């Protein structure tokens, strides 16, 4: 199972946009998560002293991903943290997608962490989850 992501430079010059591709919806979630947390800080410079478990469900994977990424932005502000890693599992039960995730990070500390963009939110601009030829794709624009 794999995913890749790349920064899209042409569609959001004032902000940050990326596109993720994955072999599965779960890979897509992992890739988008990694792209987002990397946009905020270098994870290798962040300790794992703070943890949070998140659980979300939705019948629509696209909405679930949007809300999940928004959760990461929310906790960055509400808890004052940046992320070291996120372990997540996405499963499907009947007609619902279920996401279970463990966030690991630390309170923001400019003296030890490589901080990047203060992401203000995930936008719906050009947002959409698509599948073609067995590959899943999503484009995300972050407001910084």
């Amino acid at each position: 199972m794999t995913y890749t992501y790349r920064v899209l430079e042409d569609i959001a010059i004032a902000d940050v946009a990326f596109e993720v591709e994955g072999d599965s919806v779960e890979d897509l979630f992992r890739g988008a998560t990694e792209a987002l947390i990397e946009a905020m800080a270098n994870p290798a410079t962040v300790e794992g002293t703070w943890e949070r478990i998140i659980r979300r469900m939705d019948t629509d994977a696209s909405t679930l991903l949007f809300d999940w990424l928004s959760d990461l932005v929310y906790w960055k502000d509400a808890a004052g943290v940046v992320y070291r890693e996120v372990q997540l599992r996405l499963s499907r039960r009947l007609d619902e997608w279920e996401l279970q995730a463990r966030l690991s990070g630390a309170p923001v500390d400019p003296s030890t962490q490589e901080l990047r963009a203060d992401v203000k939110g995930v936008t719906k601009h050009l947002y959409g989850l698509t599948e073609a030829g067995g590959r899943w794709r999503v484009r995300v624009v972050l407001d910084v």
Partner: protein
Amino acid sequence: MRGESQAQAVEMKLNTDMNVERITDQIWEIPATEKPGMLVSARIYATSTILQSMDSGVFDQVTNVACLPGIRRYALCMPDGHWGYGFPIGGVAAFDVSSGVISPGGVGYDVNCLAGDAHVLHELGYWRPIRSFDGAWRGERVVCVNPAHAVRNAEIGAFLLKTATTPVFRVITESGRQIVASADHPFLTKHGMTPLNALQLGDEVSVYPFEGVDYEPPSTRVLLTERDLAGIYPGTRNGLAQAVKALRQRELLPLQLDHPALPFLTKLMGFVQGDGCLQLDDGGRAQIGMYGDPDDLESIREDVRRIGFMASRVYRREREHEIHTRYGRKRFRHIESSVHIRSSALALLLVALGTTKGSKASQDFEVPVWLHETPLWMRRLYLASFFGAELSSPATVTGHGYNFSAPTLSLNKRAQAVGSGRRFLRQIQEWLRDFGVESAPLNETEDSRNKDGSTSIRLRLQISSEPDNLVKLWSRIGYGYNRRKQYLANVAAQYLRLKNTVISERAASVKTTVVMKQTPGTTLRSITHAIGSPYVNTRFVARSLWGGRLTDVRIGTEFSRFAEFVTEKTNGLGVTGQVWDRIIHKEPVAHVGPVYDVHVLDDHHNFIADGFVVSNCGMRLIRTELTLKDVQPRLERLMTELFRKVPAGVGASGFVRLNRAALDAVMTKGARWCIEQGYGWHGDLGRIEEGGCITGADPEKVSDHAVSRGINQLGTLGSGNHYLEVQVVSDDRIFDRETAAALGIIGHDQIVVMVHCGSRGFGHQVATDYLKVFEKAMRRYGIAVKDQQLACAPFRSPEGQDYFAAMNCAANTAFANRQVITHQIREAFASVFGRSAEELGMELVYDVAHNIAKVERYQDGEVVVHRKGSTRAFGPGSPDLPEVFQQTGQPVICGGSMETGSYLLVGTERAMQETFGSTMHGSGRTMSRAQAKRSVRGEQLQHQMKLRGIVVKAVSMSGLAEEAGFAYKNISEVVDTVDRAGITKKVAELRPIGNIKG
């Protein structure tokens, strides 16, 4: 012609296929016929050069806006326009208030532009050093006392930390309490709040004897999951699913040990185990009933509400009871008050946590197992609530008046369950020992015969009546959900402490007496005088000398009985649990380090610190203005100080910490709140758009989510294109000397400070929340939009009005944010230059918004003007401008890149006629962030700028690289466009010499 301008058909190539017609050299129009659904034409203010550099998003988005219902005249875009979310950045559109819409996409997310060991008693019964609240008191509530009425819990409104500028004293009272406070710190006395430096020995101050226990953070272990509930739910699968859903919606599943609701659940559990009953039948129907005093039941209702559920109102009914005891049949009547909760979800949760379902007398139960691994303060909550229901009230021994009876806990169990009853009470005893409280071995008696012939056994746990033991019980554990008992416990604890002090003093005096008497010629009177205690008279000294007393010292007969003590020492304090305590010692102490205070949101502004009822300290303000010659030698130091004082970047949090209620005040009052708190001067308000406070803000329309994101960000810069910049105004860069002078700009290399920031995550979340609301609302109102980000609702609709009220909250918060930053800037300047801000003349020139929707009146009537990356630019004579700007027109502040500089302009009458009183806001980007980072490294850019005389401090070097000057349009060209178009007039150019970036 398609993709080309009319005037320069051969040379111009535009990033659009739509027809763009030249109106003037600065105004271009896309006719309404160019896109299906356009209700009006779109107009772009730009030179031909700028127009060609505009990305395709500008043309696409401005024409999408032209399709929105109720739009008036034109959809506009300013010369700094570029692609945005829904609206282009630089976009302006006005909608009829009756038939038009309001759209978060037209407002944006970033609202506004321009910039120690005192122990506090927490509501959950633990003490924390006041400094520990720094950064950790969002949502925290502390015990607050209203002198004559009640003890209640109030949220902390602000946290303050400062260097002590007045002497610091240690105060000791008769009962042995100590506190270290600054001389100006008020204490509650019989004459009201009185500063410490006005208090004398012998004065009485109010103390709150309850101490609780130290705080310890709970673990994050998951306590309950859905699987745990499935094993115990008695109803159907569907019923279980509904209960689980209800708990998930309230974020109570999975439930971790550090969940903020768990302390309240624990309190409720303890009480239900005593004076409550929980039913959960096989059909999944639930009823939780709790019985007690009406005021206490209201507290329970409030706690139930806080965890997301609802309890009934307090019911009252007269009941007649009859029980058979070993003493005979007893009948009695009383008014029974109760509340009831019918939530299966809550009942299931409480059962899963260990609450007994059904009859407690006939079932086995123990203390909840998981509580064993929790901190002491959490176990205290369970015990206190259980004691509030079941433990006897403090009372003196009948006929004695000085000593107290042993508090007793009784538990009735049917014979078959008496074993578990004994285990339960032994577990309670074990927990009591953790608090240092001892009790006697359990006692059992046969109590009554039940209707079915079975016997009930009464188990009794008696707590030792030894005074020190009682003080620990009542001051560390106390009673929960029982104000009367807690009040008595407080006073009793104080009484016993004082008694102990008296006894200790008298005991010590005996030794002193014996020693002094060895000196020949020493009289009883001189010994008594030397001891100097109000509790040691000559008779006592005499008895100590000749009565053979060396042990068994007691209080004298002059010491009050408890009943008298209650009357005397709570006079004027109602049943709050406060007690008057006399100051017996006050000495100045050398204090190193800061002093702290918390502001609580209660009419009486007091809270409990080290047992004393204290109030808030006042605040002070500082401000400054200089020339380049003054600043250059200290520029590095100035920028370092500004970087230190104004937090920026990811996760930056300010020194002013707020909770929901205080943030509500910020949301409704904006910059006025800051002035009230002392973060600014009254004169500042007249120089802020709308006086720094937009009416119509309603915090009820703002989600908790948005509040959580923004609550500790007051006084901070974000990152991205937000900044704080120190600039210089040279004589040769002033274009309108008269107007400049009227605005306080005199040139001669004058130093000014510019701040660009908004309401940060808070404003963004407000917009995101309402985008979701509007997505659903649009279907109902039959509105279709060409871009999801243009989601909107009719302005007059409930959804539209709710958003408007929430947006105004965000706008006011952004005004407040820049006001606090202004305060910090003034302090930094004063610190570096050694003169006050007033002496340095640091007045506000102006503060203006550039992402906002406002209701304004033009020739079209009343409209909702959306300014998305564009600035209000009211002309001279506008009735909405204060007197100071009537001649000049409203100042407009436009920020360029950190390398090129910014501009000060003023609005014009032409803007009122053509662009709904609007103009540009900045220069706009031409290069992506990624490309900028590839072109230069942050450290390299910082060094290059330093060589050019611009000192830059940045939290993120990659963020700094993204903001390189070459990534932005030439601001001068953009400004010249609006100047030539006549919608704004240039006043002065401002050159950067120092910059702070997030």
